[in-house]
């Protein structure tokens, strides 16, 4: 077993070598941040939640199993952290502020294609924001954080095939939704 694998590192953390968490933090903190940002659309909150995930990892390190999978376990923890936060804050007010895109837009003001694409992107993001929490979470995991279908299936306790069906339906829903916006 490679001693630098996530799993080996987490077993060391479990045994009390907590400094090994530094390396796991380097590998995962940006992904968790991205996941939380996708879920909350708020950078400061996302940073708080990343902190919470690592605090939980330390607190519950004894529950990490010998045959565990760190990515599954840690993302499961990230999901729980987000659920707790969501329960407390109910629904997020997604900001209409699309400054980065507007800036990009102004740079490419004369490029029709780019402009069209930006519009599409804008609509897609709005459509994403309108998805239910559950659906957005699934897209976030498989598309943005590139967690394998099999692992997401393990997290959600369903078959891999069921995950694929869900993703397919969500994509359709999204597409229909943003195409409507364009009209």
């Amino acid at each position, binding site marked *: 077993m490679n001693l630098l694998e996530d799993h080996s590192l987490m077993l060391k953390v479990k045994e009390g070598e*907590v400094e090994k968490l530094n390396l796991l933090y380097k590998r995962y*903190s940006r992904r968790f*941040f991205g996941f939380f940002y996708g879920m909350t659309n708020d950078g400061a909150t996302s*940073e708080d939640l990343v902190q919470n995930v690592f605090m939980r990892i330390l607190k519950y390190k004894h529950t990490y199993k010998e045959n565990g999978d760190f990515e599954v376990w840690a993302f499961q923890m990230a999901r729980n952290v987000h659920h707790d936060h969501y329960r407390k804050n109910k629904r997020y007010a997604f900001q209409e502020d699309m400054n980065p895109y507007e800036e990009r837009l102004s740079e490419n003001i004369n490029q029709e294609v780019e402009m069209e694409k930006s519009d599409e992107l804008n609509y897609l993001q709005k459509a994403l924001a309108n998805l239910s929490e559950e659906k957005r979470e699934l897209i976030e995991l498989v598309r943005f954080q590139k967690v394998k279908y099999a692992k997401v299936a393990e997290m959600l306790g369903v078959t891999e*095939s069921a995950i694929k069906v869900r993703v*397919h339906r969500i994509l359709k829903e999204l597409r229909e939704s943003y195409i409507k916006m364009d009209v």
Partner: protein
Amino acid sequence: MKITNKKAEELWQDKLAGNISENEEKALKEFLLSNPEKAKELKDLEQTWDLFEEIERPEPSDSMNARFEGMMAAYVEKQKEVRPNVLDWIVAQMTKSWQVGLASLAMGLFIGWWMLPSQDQKQDIAQLSSEIQSMKEMMMLTLIEQPKAQERIRAVNMAAEMPKADEKVINALISTLNHDDNINVRLASLESLLRYADEPDVRHALVDALKMQESPLMLVAIADVLVAIQEKSSVDAMEKLKENTEDEFVKEKLNESIETLKNT
């Protein structure tokens, strides 16, 4: 490979995830060629899927890393503090809950009962203590023969500490009282004999000692002891000694002792 619409959707997702075999890809392609409607749907969705790539996400700030480092440092520090002293932990547990306290008490009682000596053990203990007693006696009898007065005083004091002295020890003390050259040793043995004053032999020996002693200090001390133990039979011996002694102080002491013994 039999391909259905559902299977085609799954394979298509595998393809997007870069997780499709050559055979599967070929089968999917063939299926889509004969199903143009499904092919269009999947192509459209692929475009949506690709569009996600364009979505930009901000980067976390540097303060996130600093906070993580701070959290780790605080955690390590806290671990050091709570690394417990086992005894503290036990006491804390016991005081935290009365059930635990009660359980500890019950366990203590059980251990106490379990360790309580049995009848056999009691006999063993009795035998052991009698052996120690005889060793002490032997030691005392050896010490009392030593040339150094200090050693003999130790022997005499040792006899005083014995719970029950046997005849040999008492005889050794009486002999020391009457014949030891050193007055301090003789005084020490008088003191030790006082402990066994209930024994008739000891009382007789004390009365007889009046005839054997010459030192006024010893005579006065013996007279005090005889008064203390109310040995009235010593009055005759005291009367005789009074007539024979020339020491005024001794005479006066004997008069007082005789008076006390007669009047009490």
